[in-house]
């Protein structure tokens, strides 16, 4: 028996998150297998097989998994759990969607967004927007766990596990995929970027985000936003950083025109270096910033871009 990791992917590329989940899975002891459920997703299975510590990849390649609908994936995972002690997946919207369904069907409590494995049955997870850390011990025979990937190192890629094709589970036929409106960007993804620059309500318009983007391009950074900026329509929903958006922990996080509400801090306070640019010197964001610049962002951002150009970036 061992641990099943459910791969996060888009049918073509394996998400960086999965290599981090494998690192958490290895800490549980026992074999680590990866399940790839999707359609025409052989490349994802191959990438999964390379992850260090993975001993087998299960590939369920079928049209009913093309959009990884929660009902369908949950049915498949539950059917496999006779062979495993635990199932782990990343705390992405894909896994948050199907994992609790798996837990309920198995009659076990899900442990959400663990940041540390203390023992195979004991985990640390943040609660109250990260203002408290709870150590919980599970009494369930099998564990269903989502992993906050910001705190686990990705495993290497020297492995060569076998890929085994498995049959699809039955189609519950409860839901169907209609379409996507995915944000297209040549910039790095928020959850894997080394540098992030985020804009808040202080940006005043979506058009002004160009100022943030210009700096992002110099730094090869991802662009994020506060909830206020998303609600106001300045930025897309998938750019929201925070308790109820994405949790990030880059090397450098630059918050521009963001006040630093509890909910925003919950999503970025584990960044290595934090910079805040805000015209209000009392803004709470300065309390967590390594470097604070009290300035008008409309002046500071073009200056920052020019200064980075001088460095040859």
């Amino acid at each position, binding site marked *: 028996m061992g641990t099943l990791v459910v791969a996060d992917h888009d049918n073509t590329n394996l998400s960086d998150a999965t290599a981090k989940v494998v690192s958490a899975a290895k800490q549980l002891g026992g074999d680590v297998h990866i399940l790839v459920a999707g359609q025409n997703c052989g490349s994802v299975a191959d990438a999964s097989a390379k992850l260090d510590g993975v001993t087998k990849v299960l590939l369920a390649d079928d049209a009913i998994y093309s959009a990884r609908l929660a009902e369908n994936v949950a049915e498949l995972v539950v059917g496999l759990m006779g062979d495993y002690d635990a199932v782990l997946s990343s705390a992405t*919207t894909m896994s948050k969607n*199907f994992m609790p369904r798996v*837990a309920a069907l198995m009659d076990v*409590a899900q442990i*959400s967004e663990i940041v540390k494995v203390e023992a195979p049955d*004991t985990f640390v997870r943040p609660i109250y927007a990260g203002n408290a850390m709870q*150590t919980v011990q599970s009494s369930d025979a099998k564990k269903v766990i989502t992993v906050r990937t910001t705190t686990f190192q990705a495993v290497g890629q020297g492995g060569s596990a076998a890929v085994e094709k498995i049959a699809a589970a039955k189609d519950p036929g409860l839901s169907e*995929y209609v379409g*996507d409106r995915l944000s297209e960007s040549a910039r790095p993804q928020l959850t894997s970027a080394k540098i992030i620059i985020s804009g808040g309500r202080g940006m005043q318009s979506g058009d002004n985000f160009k100022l943030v983007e210009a700096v992002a391009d110099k730094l090869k950074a991802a662009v994020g936003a506060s909830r206020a900026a998303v609600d106001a329509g300045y930025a897309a929903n998938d750019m929201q950083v925070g308790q109820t958006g*994405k949790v990030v922990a880059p090397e450098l996080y630059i918050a521009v025109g963001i006040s630093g509400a509890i909910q925003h801090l919950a999503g970025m306070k584990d960044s290595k270096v934090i910079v805040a640019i805000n015209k209000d010197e009392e803004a709470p964001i300065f309390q967590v910033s390594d470097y604070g610049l009290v300035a008008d962002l409309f002046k500071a951002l073009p200056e920052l871009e020019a200064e980075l150009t001088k460095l040859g970036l």
Partner: protein
Amino acid sequence: MKVLVPVKRVIDYNVKARVKADGSGVDLANVKMSMNPFDEISVEQAVRMKEAGTATEVIIASIGPAAAQETIRTALAMGGDRGILVKTDQTVEPLAVAKILKAITEQEGADIVILGKQAIDDDSNQTGQMLAALLGRSQATFASEVKIDGDKAEVTREVDGGLQTIRVQLPTVITVDLRLNEPRYASLPNIMKARKKPIDEKTPEDFGVDITPRLKVLKTTEPPTRAAGVKVESVQELVAKLRNEAGVI
């Protein structure tokens, strides 16, 4: 059709939670409590469905201590028709909450259950999905748009890469995200009216649900705190520090 909206009483979103000195949990004594903000969005969605003639009745349910009655009243003042309080002073984990909600959904014959995507205290993001699983129903999580169309619902969801639209079979379970709507404030007359709306009191035992926790909380601790750093005087100084001191650019 009938709509069930579970609402949870949680620490107010403006309050920063403090860990108790003895590590036994978070100090909630004398802390302002409110309805989970996502649940205000669910109530608003349900009430709008009633106003549009899609829903015939909006039932509000909460599982928690006696004070959760206030949270139900708030939802009734926003336009809910009646309430169900499942009273308990014990810890109720999402799986147990989902089991109780399953029983209520079946008893009431609710066609649609609308929940928050997550509660801002435990941040579990599980209850709705678990309920859908226990009921054997479809689920539409993190909704930013909901259209009911015959025996199906078309729901747009906020996902990591942007937006995804799915069509789910009714009856269903929906969990709401921030951009679905802007919840209304209850007017004074509606707050008065809500006082007369019925709230049924139940216990978990009434539904035959065992709420014994599966997770044992060993300890609760403060996260590592960050010390405030320095203020820089200019963009030049900032860039120099990031390059030479922090070494991040």
